[in-house]
């Protein structure tokens, strides 16, 4: 039977790095996917994910409830990305994003034109909307869980998803 997050956190707090490694194996795919959705730059998102995990490892002692490790980890990632966004110039970041998009994974069943239109629509969303879309639509998180991670009311999460999804569908020429 696999150990729970709380068991692994307890072991990692006792200095067992392998236990934290297991937590990383368990949660890094979802964390990276979330950050990729928010950053729109896979390489930057993966760097941010690694930074998030290192920060979590260093601050494991400050986690009050080990059962909510996943939300806590994603919250760290969200704050790191927000800090990075503030630090980087918006124009510079946008140019970087456009050039990075070319080398990223191509979606199946979508033409290049549609993919570019969706990418442009994603860039036009606010970072909060992208985070909500990435967590709830792509990651399958509940609105409550997303509210905890992003430190927003559930109503705001729902509103961000509704508006963001409408803008993305409008970019495809679908219903808004």
């Amino acid at each position, binding site marked *: 039977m696999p150990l729970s997050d709380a068991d692994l956190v307890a072991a990692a707090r006792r200095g067992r790095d392998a236990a934290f*490694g297991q937590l990383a194996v368990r949660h890094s795919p979802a964390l990276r*996917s979330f950050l990729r959705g928010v950053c729109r730059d896979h390489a930057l998102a993966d760097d941010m994910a690694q930074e998030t995990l290192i920060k979590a490892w260093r601050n494991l002692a400050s986690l009050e409830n080990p059962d909510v490790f996943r939300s806590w980890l994603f919250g760290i990632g969200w704050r790191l990305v927000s800090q990075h966004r503030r630090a980087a110039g918006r124009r510079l970041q946008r140019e970087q994003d456009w050039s990075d998009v070319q080398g990223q994974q191509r979606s199946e069943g979508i033409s290049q034109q549609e993919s570019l239109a*969706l990418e442009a629509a994603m860039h036009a969303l606010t970072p909060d909307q992208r985070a909500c879309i990435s967590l709830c*639509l792509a990651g399958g998180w509940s609105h409550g869980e997303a509210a905890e991670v992003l430190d927003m009311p559930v109503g705001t999460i729902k509103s961000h998803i509704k508006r963001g999804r409408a803008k993305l569908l409008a970019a495809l020429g679908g219903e808004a």
Partner: protein
Amino acid sequence: MSPNEKLTSFLMADQAPAFDPGFIAGLEERMARDRLLSRLWQLAVLAIAIGAVCFGLAMASGPQVLATAFSGMDGVIETPGLLLAAIIVAAGVYLPRILPRALIR
């Protein structure tokens, strides 16, 4: 494909692989480096503290206390191979603890 399916497909393109040994190896390497730096800092602080205590004792007791301490070491230092053995034992005990895991494998 409907616009909804296209949107889902577009969002799925951001999904990271379920298992990525390269990413985990990079993380473990950073953790090992972090651990090594933290231990080196601890050892540096300990060395400075011990040095300060020894310096204080020497200053308080006068230089003759150092001469007395080192005179008792003469026999130990002159024993053939003892210093080499001490270095080998210390390396065997401490190196696996402080070296990054990737270097030992």
